[in-house]
């Protein structure tokens, strides 16, 4: 990146005859930049961005820097107490919330279709939430400038059930799913507060919620296609036809993807693996509903079927139900 910094600082080495001031200005600029650590900062940001390959690189950078800024700011505040046990400045509850926020940030970094990146992020988030009780030093001892977590020994034997459920709730709501729609899903996935959630269950829950959010957004888009907002809610027949197509797509999506690195000896993990893989298939399948099929369904619906309208909410709930009935209950 050094050549980039040179470009930004403006001028190349002074040709003869040019005033001295230009050379010293670019030198002092470069000195200033290295003093405040801009090179490292940007290098880290770009690397993270390339790894994530987000659809919205600018948004990604904005989130990345905001996150880094808040970590640095709270970290500085926390560390100012020196070597004492950190329970002073931040209560355990607030600390947990902070961990939750950071875990959620990690989970947002990569889309669930990017298997290895997503798995890594789930692991990092899990480790973050896995810390139970007070620790030797405030957790915000500076992360590297690129925002990665320093290796810490995992504290507890699992994520607290309540925290796990909260994570799932946040994932769903951030993904644009209203609470009422995600409630039945969370019923199936949630764990009791006193339970310690192991990594594979955590991963399964997070993945299911991520896929579910995508699925619901897709369903919303489908509804928007069959319905013109000016003309009021879409006809019931039409909606049922579209839901039928969606159901068909879900049912034909079979197959187990063996790419996950979950311990294959654990039968529970196997079922989780299967469900997760299916979840991924659901979204790919729903994306495959072609406009032609949709048009066919719509044309068919117009000649028969019940009367009345179906509004967006009902459609969304019905679509959600199709998905949720396939999700195994966590026991």
């Amino acid at each position, binding site marked *: 990146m050094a050549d*980039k*910094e040179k*470009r*930004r*600082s403006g001028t190349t080495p002074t040709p003869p005859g040019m005033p001295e001031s230009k050379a010293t200005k670019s030198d002092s*600029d470069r000195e*200033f*930049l290295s003093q*405040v*650590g*801009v090179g490292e*900062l*940007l290098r880290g*940001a*770009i690397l993270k*961005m*390339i790894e994530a*390959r987000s*659809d*919205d*690189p*600018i*948004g990604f*950078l*904005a989130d990345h*820097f*905001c996150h*880094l*800024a808040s970590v*640095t*700011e709270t970290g500085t505040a926390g560390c100012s107490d020196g070597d004492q046990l950190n329970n002073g400045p931040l209560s355990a509850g607030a600390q947990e919330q902070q961990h939750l926020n950071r875990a959620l940030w990690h989970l947002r970094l990569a*889309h669930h*279709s*990017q298997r290895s990146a997503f798995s890594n992020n789930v692991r990092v988030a899990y480790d973050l939430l896995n810390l139970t009780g007070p620790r030797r030093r405030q957790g915000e001892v500076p992360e590297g400038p690129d925002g990665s977590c320093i290796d810490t020994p995992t504290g507890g034997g699992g994520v607290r059930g309540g925290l796990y459920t909260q994570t799932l709730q946040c994932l769903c709501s951030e993904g*644009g799913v209203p609470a009422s729609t995600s409630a039945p899903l969370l019923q199936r996935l949630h764990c009791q507060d006193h339970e310690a959630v192991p990594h594979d269950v955590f991963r399964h829950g997070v993945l299911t919620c991520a896929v579910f959010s995508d699925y619901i*957004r897709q369903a*919303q*888009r489908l509804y*928007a296609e069959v319905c013109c907002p000016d003309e009021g809610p879409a006809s019931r027949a039409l909606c049922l036809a579209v839901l039928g197509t969606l159901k068909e797509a879900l049912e034909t999506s079979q197959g187990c993807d063996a790419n996950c690195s979950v311990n294959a000896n654990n039968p529970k993990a196997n079922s989780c693996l299967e469900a997760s893989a299916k979840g991924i298939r659901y979204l790919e399948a729903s*994306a495959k509903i072609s406009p032609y099929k949709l048009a066919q369904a719509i044309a068919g619906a117009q000649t028969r079927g019940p009367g009345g309208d179906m509004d967006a909410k009902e459609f969304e709930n019905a679509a959600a139900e199709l998905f949720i009935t396939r999700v195994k209950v966590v026991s």
Partner: protein
Amino acid sequence: MFISTLSPESTSTMSRFNCAVPVDEYLADSNVLFYLSDAVTQLLEHKEEYTQFGVIRYFAEYFSSVKNSNHILFREYNYIRATPHNRASFIRVLWRCYRQIGKSGDLLSMLEYRSLLQLLCPDFPAEMVQSAARIVLMDDAIDCLMSFSDFLYAFQLQFYYQEFLDSVLMIYQDLLSGKSPNTVIVPTSTSIEQLPSVAAEDNDREEQQQDGVEPSTLAQCIDALCDRFKRSHPPRSCMREALEQTDKVSYYSFLMSLAKHEAINQTIEVMYIQREGVAA
């Protein structure tokens, strides 16, 4: 990545599934390096002010404002026109700031619109405003008053697709002067330098305005241009539709129908709606 991939065939979700996009292309598409470079330049120019809360906070603010389309406010013209996102953001801010004029139905002159633009961008050039006015007024009586929405639609088209429209104008000039479509040289985006001479032909153009050219011929040439044009251009379907209606089409009548086409508005609008995460 923004406007040129907005054709119905390709969706933005493709990039998630296609990790084979090389790094250079991925970086180039989003103009990220441009923004990083500008951020650092700005930082160097305003050291004391911007390091008050720390450098990380500065970058966070910079990129947040880019994301929210606020970054172009009061910046220089060269910055505003530098990326498609910047152009769309500027149009949006324009609309947001001056919405009231549209609502009240006031009619303003070209110079007044230019003043409004200069409030948001101090060095906004007159030529751009003139070009937009010509579309609304069909190149006639530039002093006439225009409604805000007419002006905005024309301005948005002209400003966003400036390079493409300049190329189309050159093609139109060639066709008008009698060249056969096969010999019309399809200009690339680097041949913009020739334009100042075109502007000098104002008088000639007014006389020729009545004639126009064959819409199908123009459509053919525009299609060829789209095939080669590297930067953004309006959706082909819109342009084809705009050319279907008449027997003879003039450059400004073509632009006028294009400006009114709903899809153009949506195309430019969709980008900043998507940015805010509203489901399309």
